């Protein structure tokens, strides 16, 4: 039985790469490939294949938003996939290696396969596909590192904290954080202080906070 695979990525070169790699796959799997280069395309293909959903979907998180603005990114698309094609196995590929984003993707999409592009070689991609097709999970080593750190850490910080750390690392000023988190400036400052305490930072600025957070795997 052929394995229906949908590749969703907006860079043609990458799509080429994936196609070539898939050619090396185990013959038993007999891959049949479909390609979508944007959200709208992907959405259409998913909807139209609902009676015969794809076995495998290779999803790139960093996609430009759909034309009507309803789907803002790969993450949104991922949610739609889970909704419309719950039986499809999802392998997420992303350029991001920030803890915060990965954490969100994990939480929201809970993909069967999770690959950081900078980790990946063709061999590894093949392995991931093979594993996932046989109902196993495959996470690339950065993701595993992240999980390890999280599990071994005694410190618990919530989503909002992560968001704050993330935006700080992007250079957003503290006073502008109130635009991205649903908190007042005072509350944001409090969270930062608590995080510093939690991380064991006595006298440190934001830079020290971010470095420590990175070390601990929160960023």
């Amino acid at each position, binding site marked *: 039985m052929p394995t229906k695979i949908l590749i969703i990525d907006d860079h043609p*070169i990458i799509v*080429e*790469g994936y196609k070539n790699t898939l050619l090396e796959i185990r013959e038993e799997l007999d891959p049949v490939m479909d390609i979508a280069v944007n959200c709208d395309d992907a959405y259409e293909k998913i909807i139209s294949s609902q009676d015969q959903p794809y076995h495998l979907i290779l999803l790139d998180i960093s996609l430009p938003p759909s034309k009507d603005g309803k789907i803002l990114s790969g993450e949104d698309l991922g949610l739609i996939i889970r909704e419309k094609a719950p039986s499809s196995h999802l392998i997420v590929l992303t*350029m991001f290696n920030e803890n915060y984003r990965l954490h969100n993707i994990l939480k929201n999409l809970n993909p069967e396969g999770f690959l950081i592009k900078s980790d990946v070689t*063709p061999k590894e991609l093949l392995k991931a596909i093979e594993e996932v097709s046989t109902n196993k999970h495959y996470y690339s080593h950065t993701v595993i590192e992240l999980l390890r750190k999280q599990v071994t850490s005694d410190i618990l910080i919530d989503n909002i904290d992560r968001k704050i750390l993330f935006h700080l690392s992007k250079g957003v000023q503290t006073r502008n954080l109130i635009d991205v988190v649903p908190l007042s400036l005072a509350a944001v400052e409090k969270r930062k202080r608590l995080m510093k305490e939690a991380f064991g930072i006595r006298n440190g600025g934001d830079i020290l906070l971010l470095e420590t957070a990175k070390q601990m795997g929160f960023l």
Partner: protein
Amino acid sequence: MFNDFFYYFLISFCFLSCSDNKSVNPSNSNDFKDNNYFETLKDLKTSNFSKDSLQILVKRINNDSLRNEIYFDLAYHFYKKNDSLNFRELNNKSFDLSLNQKDTIKMALSYWDLANFFYQRNQNDSSYFYYNKAYNFYELKQNNFMGARMLLNMAIIQKDIKDYVGSEASTIKAIKKIKPLKKNKHLYMAYNNLGIIYNQLGEFDLSLKYHNTALQYEEKIKSPLNRISTLNNIGVAFHNKGKLTEAIETYKKALSIDSIFYNDPDLYAMLLDNLAHAKLTDNDTLGTKKLFLEALKIREELEHEAGIVINKLHLSEYFLKEGDTAGAIKYAREAKLLAEQSTSYDGLLESMLLLSKIDKANSNRFLNDYIRINDSLQRKERSIRNNFARIRFETDQFIAENTELNVQKNRILYGASGVVLFLGLLVVIRTQKVRNKELKLDKKQQKANEDIYNLLLEQQNKIEEGRYRVKKRISEELHDGVLSQIFGIRFVLAGLNNKIDPASIQTRENYLGELKAIEEEVRNIAHDLNKDFLSSEKSFLTIIEELLEKQKDISGFVYSIENDADLEWDKINSKIKINLYRIIQEAVQNINKYAAASNVDLTFEKLNDSLKIKILDNGCGFNVEKSVEGIGIKNLRSRVKDLNGSISIISGKQGTNIFVSLPLN
């Protein structure tokens, strides 16, 4: 430091006071007051007085009031001795010292002594004058007793010059003052005077009344001579009233008092004379001649001229009554002669009258003389009375004027100080108002400055936001675009790594081309980065542009802004930018208000280390020298000055040019 100065001052002060003591031998001044002073003074009084010895005495004393005592004492001594020259000199010296020391009491006493002195010499007007002066001092010091004593003295003088009305007034005034003080001796003197006055005025009943009152006071003071004197006067009053029996009785009563002849022979003689005269009038000639002659003898020995005149006149009357016309004429003529010689005018008149009665032949002549002399006497008396009245009036007027002036002075003083206070208050209020206004304006300025500062900050923020956005964009571009592509290429190449078939080789070559494309993309991104950083300089100029954009619609002008590319607005001090904004704002507002210009050109130029700004308009201009500078232009100048810059304004019919130069370091 101030403490040191104080100590030096204190110490030097002690030295000074010490040295003061040294110049006067302490033993001297103390002993002097107790022993030497009295000794020496006694010497001066008893032995031959010399001016030099007085000088020596006086020189040894430093104390002025002590000196004054000496002068005063000596003056009185000479007054008693009748040494008029020395008296006057010392009296003057004493008075001058008293004047220096403002010792009004001593001054009054000097006046009193002087008045007494003049009275002794029958210089009634001078005497009265000085009594009056003394009286004024006592009135100032509200010393009623002494004032009353002066009044009494003046009353007596007034009686002497026959100003009976004046004397009456002075006496009554004196009595008013003395009565509550119960000074019996002086009350006696006062009532005695009144008795005499009323006698002269022909008010015999009043005269008797007051003489009797005087007698009552005499009983309190027990002064026999005064008693006799008053009794004499009562007798005269009775005689004038026609009550001869009572008169004779009174005279006899008076004569019965002890030792009159020894104590006051003149009074004794008067009593004898009066008694005899009363008896004569009563047609009782028994023993009257003897009495008359006895009285005359005493008076002649005493050389009491006025008394002798009257005595002789009485004798003339006696002889007339006895029918001895020759004797009568003889005595009458003798009386007249003596009266003329001694200027005893009353006696003179009476003698003329008597002679006119006796000497029937020359009657008319005597009567004419009488009338003539009487008239001139009256005139003289009137003039003296007027003089005295003038003295009193002038003094009174002087006092009144003084008081009036004082009151006026006080009023003026209060009025003036009131006005000054009021003005002061106004000034204070004004300065407060002005200060308030200044503060308010300052506040306004502050606020305006704050506003501009905020504008600049906002602009800064916008720049930063802009930069942030740019960074984000670039990061995204790199991340999504370039990174993904490189990944793609790597991925493929990795897959093709160990393949050497021609298709793979071709694919590899294709992807090498792709790598080149990526290089190009990266270069572009870098170039973009550069360009974006440059564009952030527009900040300050943007604000100025916004300002002009807003202002242009008010009077409808077209504007242009020229900027020097060498100007790094980012690096220019905020203070300069804020003030510059205000300067341009002010200038543009002026243009809108007054110039009615259609074109406004703003130029920024960097020359050496200064920023040169030109604001040119083509409006109607104004006369820079003539017109008073409004607050706007003053502000301009002050701001430029604040920034250590220079400003020049040239204006004419074609428009106004404002040149500002600001140093940039």
